[in-house]
């Protein structure tokens, strides 16, 4: 691609164009922080109201699967960062390889979540509204914990699925040679989004799985 077509006409130079696209994505991510922030605040509040039930809930989650999925997401962040680097250097083959790896790791995360965790919780009777069989003294408070659990991980997983869609589009675009060291903004801002979803999980993992007194 010629540099004349790499630069959209409303920008003075490539630097400004690059800055504008990153800025737009950071502003979007700021709204995402507020979106997840509201959920996190509600979780912290109700955890303090019903601490025993929420600690029981945390212990009922499988920490091994949580830790494994954290590692999978961190791997995908590394491959995404390397994909952006390949785009910066104009290495088309490497770019497609790293984007594919990121896609596969993202699908692994969602697959593990769906097939191992959610399915297990449902079958064990920990799905509020669908299959709830727990009859302990804190049953209603525990139900609230699992509402938060499914909502938080569900919204996160939805973000992952959207990310997988974005990656698919990027791979097709990369295959058609739409990126160059002058114009790789789409890869860069998609990377920002992907890393943000990773960061949400970095906070979800300790808040949901770890701080329930596992000792």
């Amino acid at each position, binding site marked *: 691609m010629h540099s004349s077509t790499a630069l959209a006409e409303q920008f003075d130079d*490539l*630097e400004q*164009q*690059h*800055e504008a696209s*990153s*800025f737009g994505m*950071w*502003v979007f*991510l*700021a709204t995402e*922080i*507020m979106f997840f*922030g*509201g959920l*996190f*605040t509600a979780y*912290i*509040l109700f955890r*303090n109201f019903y601490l025993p039930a929420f600690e029981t809930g945390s212990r009922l989650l499988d*920490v091994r699967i949580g*830790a494994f999925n*954290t*590692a999978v997401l*961190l*791997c995908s*962040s*590394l491959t*995404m*960062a*390397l994909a952006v*680097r390949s785009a*910066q*250097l104009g290495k088309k083959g490497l770019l497609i390889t790293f984007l594919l790896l990121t896609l596969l790791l993202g699908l692994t995360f969602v697959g593990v979540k769906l097939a191992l965790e959610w399915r297990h919780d449902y079958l064990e009777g920990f799905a509020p509204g669908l299959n709830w069989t727990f009859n302990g003294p804190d049953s209603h408070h525990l139900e609230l914990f699992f509402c938060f659990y499914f909502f938080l991980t569900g919204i996160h997983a939805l973000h992952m699925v959207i990310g997988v869609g974005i990656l698919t589009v990027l791979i097709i675009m990369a295959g058609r040679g739409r990126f160059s*060291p*002058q114009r*790789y903004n789409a890869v*860069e801002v998609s*990377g*920002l989004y992907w*890393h*943000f979803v*990773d*960061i949400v999980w*970095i*906070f979800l*993992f*300790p*808040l949901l*799985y*770890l*701080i329930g*007194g*596992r*000792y």
Partner: protein
Amino acid sequence: MSGHVVPKRLYILIFAALIVCTGLTTGVAFINLGKWNTVVALAIAVCKASLVVLFFMHLRWSSGLMRMVLLAAFVWFAILVALTLSDEFTRQWTPVPSSWEAQAQQEAR
């Protein structure tokens, strides 16, 4: 070419640090530290998030504009958490007048 190209080795180093932190936070969860368990878990999470933001998301090499956006988001989030929690945790500080409670009981009947 626009944007800072980060050496591959640095990315792998950051990734290794993130994996070590994940192992650490999972391990610490099985040791009884009382209320410090929560503090340690969140401190490690903040460290991990900072590594991702600074290096993977290139904030270390980004302009002040991007830093301002992130800072603004976190300040607003801090206000959200601080005001909500300060409301909830100070409600019992002032006593409820006994006449109010009597009235509430009457209405409940």
